[in-house]
């Protein structure tokens, strides 16, 4: 069902290519990756925004936050 969407396979293929083009990074080379702004998870201030978006929009999930349930939201 999802693969019928024309853009989804492109994103999946691009992601696979990115994962396989990885170079080994040693601990002392991670100064930029360890910067607070480089965190992959959502920050606390973004979670409050995700909360109102889960009420006002039909879609939710895949962002480390709520996937549905736990509140009167969609």
């Amino acid at each position, binding site marked *: *069902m*999802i693969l019928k*969407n024309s*853009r*989804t396979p492109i*994103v999946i293929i691009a*992601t696979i290519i*990115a*994962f396989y*083009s*990885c*170079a*080994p*990074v*040693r*601990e002392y*080379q*991670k100064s*930029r*990756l360890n*910067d*607070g*702004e*480089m*965190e*992959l998870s959502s*920050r*606390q*201030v*973004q*979670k*409050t*925004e995700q*909360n*109102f*978006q889960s*009420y*006002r*929009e*039909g*879609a*939710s*999930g*895949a*962002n*480390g936050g709520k*996937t*549905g*349930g*736990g*509140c*009167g939201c*969609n």
Partner: protein
Amino acid sequence: MKKICLVVVGIYIHLFAAFSQTPDSVNYKTRKLKIDEINFVSSYYHQDGNNSAVTGGIGIESLHDYANILEVKLSKYDKYKYKHEWDANIGIDYYTSASSDNIDPNTVSSPSHEDVRFYPSLTHTITNEKKGLSVGLTGSYSIESDYQSRGIAANFSTTSHDKSREFSAKAQAYLDEVRIILPVELRTATTGGLYGAPNEHDYPWLHRNSYSSSFTLSQIVNQRFQMMVLFDLVYQEGFLSLPFHRIYFKDNSETTEHLPSTRFKIPIGVRANYFLGDQFIIRAYYRYYQDDWGLVAHTADIETPIKITPFFSISPFYRFYTQKGIRYFAPYREHLESDEYYSSNYDLSSFNSHFFGVGFRTMPPKGVLGIPQITMFELRYGHYITTNTLYADVITLNVRFK
């Protein structure tokens, strides 16, 4: 329902068994429980629009919400050198809603005119740092006047030896209850809330359960670039409508929203962060979403923190969202009585939205304003507009203590 909770707990216990080993008596070192950090988050949200579902898809949507969250993170090592972390959250929201006041416009204040939502949660995570494994269990609760929720979740994550890749999985269940408060003109002696009847406040409750499994895979690509793939499977069952959402049919007869009793959602997201030069960071996110009510959505988000100094950054951001609405939506007086399901909730209609704003963040090594206990201060403002007349402003503050 109970079986699913037991399965979640069972998974947790099973994963915990993978940690079994004998105490390390040679390198034994007592570690006391310590506070890692305390976060205080406060936000103010205001919205308005002209498509309130309470009045059948027309009418004001004015709402003010004040949210405050206190998060305390604690940790300690046990005799096996496993790291135990506790993340305790307490949240309180206070909101006023003009549209909800139209559930019963005859009263000074109807049940949802103003409300308080209280939502504590506690997560316990145990990490074997040597093996790069961790397991966790979360319990959560949420209550407001017409909704309550009990949540349980178990999670597992494993990190590669070089710490460049991490996989995590989470199983989660929310066992919710919706209080069936009908619009005043539709109340009868059996629905509760009928004035003068003995059951004036005896509104019934109906269940709404949500079960989800979430998977994430993160990968360091090179010294400047890392990314994450997020995938959820969500199944909801029970009363998925809201009882005070009015529906006006073409013949002007009236009822309340009626939606299917199950919903299956599949969101897939990709997050990628890139450090450009020495001052610029690009944080990008894309999500594809689809469910069996016919809703299809795309979300694209970009944030570009600019590091003015190593400890102070300004982050402009922009988020675009588009959705094709559910097949059961129709505007005011466009549903037919012969329709099987109906909703005039514009949150589930087709629309685009734009969300943009800026954030400021400082983490000085000697503490904010020279106070060493305050390690981080972040302020963020965003403006939200949709193509169906709704607009909103949100301002959020996060102060971190250590």
